[in-house]
């Protein structure tokens, strides 16, 4: 008996559970709770809603029939309500996004450097962000009541006769947009402050030595460096404004005269008040496509900007 025969006899077969396989199994185990929940409560429903959208299904009739694209043609061609709702959503976004971003940038520039009072003002402008939309909407609904509301009383104090804000379609939309901006602007302000603080000081110093004034420095140096942040903020804010629901539900209920009836509210109404399941599902898919398109467009813009 020699040592060599013994070692060849005992030569181990490669074990099935290699380190790599082991790591793969563990990896999948780590992600599986998230993944399974995600499949059941998110991806599954997303696929289901596509199928719902192809059916005529009123909850009262208890059964659904396949109708092809009828719900979509109904929305896009036959039902004038739909385009009214889309118009409202676009007006809401077109009013909210620029106002929000301009104010956020202005506040961020004013508050990006440490100084007395900066922390105080940041705290103040951010406070509505953490407040529930329900509380915010309730309070503003009171403040904007006709003559008796605090806003109109203040306006009367300086001799202005304010409108009945939430009872006139155009003013209602304006009021909803402005109160929403006040609620959410703090978030964008913080994102801009973070971006401004990341701007290298040397660039500004160099521009200053060249004799640029404050506005020129902002326009030529700071603003271009903020471009990626601006795009991200634009994506987040536009998508957020297309999803607005609670604010509308509580302040105007879509009224007056459907003047503030936006897409998210319309979907809720069709689904859970009128129980038009198929139509509501088609609307949901349309909303999904709009949000997806917005995201893709802005991601493309971002890529173009960075190359």
């Amino acid at each position: 008996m020699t040592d060599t025969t013994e070692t060849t006899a005992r030569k181990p077969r490669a074990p099935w559970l290699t380190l790599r396989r082991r790591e793969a199994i563990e990896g999948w185990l780590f992600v599986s709770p998230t993944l399974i929940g995600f499949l059941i409560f998110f991806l599954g429903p997303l696929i289901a809603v596509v199928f719902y959208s192809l059916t005529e299904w009123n909850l009262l009739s208890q059964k659904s029939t396949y109708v092809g694209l009828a719900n979509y043609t109904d929305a896009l061609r036959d039902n004038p309500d739909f385009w009214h709702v889309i118009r409202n959503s676009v007006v809401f976004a077109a009013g909210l996004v620029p106002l929000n971003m301009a104010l956020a940038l202005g506040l961020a520039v004013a508050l990006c450097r440490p100084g007395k009072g900066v922390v105080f003002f940041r705290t103040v402008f951010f406070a509505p962000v953490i407040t529930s939309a329900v509380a915010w909407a309730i309070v503003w609904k009171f403040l904007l009541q006709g003559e008796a509301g605090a806003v109109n009383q203040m306006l009367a104090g300086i001799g202005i006769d304010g409108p009945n804000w939430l009872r006139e379609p155009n003013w209602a939309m304006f009021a909803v947009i402005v109160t929403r901006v006040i609620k959410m602007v703090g978030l964008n302000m913080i994102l801009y402050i973070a971006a401004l603080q990341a701007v290298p000081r040397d660039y500004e110093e160099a521009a200053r030595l060249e004799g640029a004034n404050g506005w020129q420095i902002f326009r030529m140096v700071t603003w271009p460096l903020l471009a990626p942040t601006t795009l991200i903020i634009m994506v987040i804010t536009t998508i957020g404004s297309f999803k607005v629901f609670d604010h509308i539900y509580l302040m105007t209920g879509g009224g007056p005269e459907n003047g503030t009836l936006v897409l998210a509210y319309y979907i809720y109404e069709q689904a859970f008040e009128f129980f038009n399941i198929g139509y509501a599902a088609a609307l949901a898919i349309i909303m999904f496509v709009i949000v997806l398109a917005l995201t893709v467009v802005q991601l493309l813009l971002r890529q173009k900007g960075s190359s």
Partner: protein
Amino acid sequence: MALTRSQTRTVTRIFWALSLSVVAVPFVFPFLWMISSGFKSATEIFGQLSLIPDTWRWGNYIEVFTYQPFARQYFNSIYIACAVTGITLILSSLAGYALARMRFAGAGLLMLFLVSALMVPEEVTILPNFFLMKWLGVMDTHVPLILLPVFGPHGVMATFLMRQYFVSLPKELEEAGKMDGLSRLGIWWKIALPMSRPALAAVAIITFLFSWNLFLEPLVFVSSLSNFTLPLALSNFTDPYGAPLWHLQLAATSLAVVPILIVYLIAQRQIIESFAMSGVKG
């Protein structure tokens, strides 16, 4: 008379402070008005603008609790937010850790898959989820209010945040853990988690507030008063004819908002940073 340099600076500074204060009015006034109106009678709320009530009606704050089971609803909001936060922290850090630190086939694809989910609004999937919850027999319970935030886009964002943080941690400590014979789970629990306190805090803060402020889901899934969460309860202070009971509604709203505001004032730096972190990276 020309101003000296330091005088110009002082003038500019005063100008800034004044204009910021003016801008701050619509941010601060609603809170002050809400709290003071909670002490007024319904008629006084619209009678005059003064922030100091004629007579302080402390009774409003008692009536809030007798009008509907407000204490119960308050408790519902607290325990649901705690449950959502706890579960989200565990699941998102587990998945985030695996996606950041472990090599396995399909990880990249999975990541892409999850991130693309961030683009889907909850409004899109709520309808099928409504039928799913009905089928599971959990309508008018808190199960949907816990499951949907954990596994919806918010949970995905939490996972993504944790992953970004784990990626940036130094590898050496993990190696040391491996030498000491720790399992993967052990490394995650004893090394990775303790090192990621800032990310965990950020996820905890935004998750808690997200759940606390949720409105659409409770509106759709919960119907009985004793199962209401705060946002639903607040919009429910109406007399039998549907007219709002202003003084009660504002007292209740103050009770729901003020504790969160106090926490915010104490931990404002951390809270603001959490939002900045999630916003920039998510």
